[in-house]
């Protein structure tokens, strides 16, 4: 029996012919490859989900700033805002954001997290699942299943593109996480495998081109807020799919576009902190090379940026 799949199209063929959801396809593939029981695999995912919840709980409690001074305390603020009388767009939105922030703030303070698929994007899937637990009654077993849904999509991305910010920019990290989470949400809401893949496509196509330009080289600005915001983005993509919005570019094509854009993206915008936010006047204050005083920004300084704007 061949349970492996290279593309979303192959994954969907398996799901349709066996009449199973994406999570089941990922679970069967894993059980076969690792020669172990489904129950032990689900147990491990359940354990991972508990660690995720724990990282959210610990992140929400953070009040002190991280060693770099770049993050800390915003998850807590969002949480309080979510519980205020009239939070903008309802409390679920700011809670979901708070959860994404929390994981990354905990991560920035050397806390224990589950890389999903990377540490810099580790807040998105957990934030979505905890939000589903609170608003839709997702159980712990359901969350373990949803992590296999996310894994199914992640396996396809890993085989056809990559998760590394240094090779593909932020679209490969946060884009992939958001893509995986969107599919997990749809399946948890009883959507079909096709709908789950459409949600994944919607999420990823709207993160294409996202660069990795972390201030000071730390996984904090913009990473912390980006995890909160793109957790919400996953819900937006899932909403589109559940509403049966038309998916013109299938997931496999979007993944190839992501790989192509990642290859064309300049090295300075791929986790080197040599351009973008990292080399803005405010960002440079946190640049490690500031100490050496010989750092030359690759892309526009504030002055040159203003020149360009006046020309436009």
């Amino acid at each position, binding site marked *: 029996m061949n349970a492996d799949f290279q593309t979303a199209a192959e994954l969907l063929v398996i799901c349709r012919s066996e009449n199973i959801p994406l999570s089941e396809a*990922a*679970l069967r*593939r*894993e059980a076969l*490859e*690792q*020669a172990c029981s489904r129950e032990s*695999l689900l147990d*491990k*995912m359940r354990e*991972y989900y508990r*660690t995720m919840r724990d990282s959210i709980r610990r992140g929400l409690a953070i009040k002190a700033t991280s060693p*770099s001074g770049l993050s800390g305390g915003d998850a807590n603020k969002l949480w309080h805002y979510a519980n205020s009388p009239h939070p903008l767009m309802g409390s679920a939105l700011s809670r979901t954001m708070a959860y994404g922030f929390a994981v990354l703030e*905990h*991560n*920035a*303070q*050397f*806390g*224990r*997290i*589950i*890389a*999903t*698929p*990377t*540490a*810099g994007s*580790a807040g998105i*899937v957990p934030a979505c699942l905890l939000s589903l637990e609170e608003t839709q009654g997702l159980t712990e077993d359901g969350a373990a299943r949803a*992590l*296999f849904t*996310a*894994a*199914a999509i*992640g*396996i396809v991305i*890993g*085989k056809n593109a*990559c*998760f*590394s*910010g*240094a*090779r593909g920019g932020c679209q*490969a990290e946060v884009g992939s996480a958001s893509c*995986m989470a969107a599919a997990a949400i749809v399946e948890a809401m009883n959507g079909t495998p096709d709908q789950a893949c459409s949600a994944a496509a919607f999420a990823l196509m709207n993160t294409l081109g996202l660069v990795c330009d*972390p201030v*000071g*080289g*730390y*996984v*904090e600005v913009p990473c912390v807020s980006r995890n909160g915001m793109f957790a919400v983005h996953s819900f937006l993509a899932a909403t589109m799919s559940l509403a049966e919005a038309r998916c013109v570019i299938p997931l496999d094509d979007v993944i190839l576009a992501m790989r192509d854009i990642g290859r064309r993206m300049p*090295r300075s915008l*791929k*986790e*080197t*902190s*040599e351009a973008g936010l990292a080399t803005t006047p405010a960002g440079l204050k946190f640049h*490690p090379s500031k100490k050496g005083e010989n750092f030359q920004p690759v892309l526009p300084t504030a002055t040159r940026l203003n020149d360009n704007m006046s020309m436009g």
Partner: protein
Amino acid sequence: MISAFDVIGPAMVGPSSSHTAGACRIGIIARHLFAGTPREATIELHGSFASTGTGHATDRALVAGLLGFAPDDERIKDAFSQAATLGLHFEILSADFGEDAHPNSARLTVKGENGEDHSLLAASVGGGMVEVREVDGYTTSFGGQLETLLLWHEDKPGFLAKVTALLSCVEANIATIRTSRKGRGAEALSVIEVDVPLPDDCLSLLAKISPTRTVRHFSRLP
């Protein structure tokens, strides 16, 4: 082969899967090249590892791995002081391995007890996954996702036949195998990945196969 747990996981201490967890795993592999404990290490960082390594604790994670700490060990942040306590001297340098090198690459040149020394060139390829590119100057390719066997030996006819025969006796299915040599009949390194843990007596027999010089092995990385 990407596992669901490569995508969801590893459990790790922040801040970066490639720059912290992956770096720690590279350090762990380097430690496994030794029978004893690493005592001195020169760590060269290339590309993004060099430019953003400090902020991502890449340096501390590589040292933590050399000390044998797992990627989710909360002592990683204190790896430098732990190294002082545990007797590992290290220096960390910035280097340029050229355009072809993966942006997250590190070269570790390590001395152990009894004058044993090894070098390792490896890349952290995303999500905590790693790829070893060179061991002691031999080109190779493995990621620590399976039971891994390293055999330093002379390049002689029939060597691999004896090794694979022994592995077949213990029903260890070979996933990958790669031999690299310095020249015909000269020194060589074979790296074999197998699906199941190898029994101790199998390992001691492997060491007796002529002309094996050294055998090291390690299990799937944490």
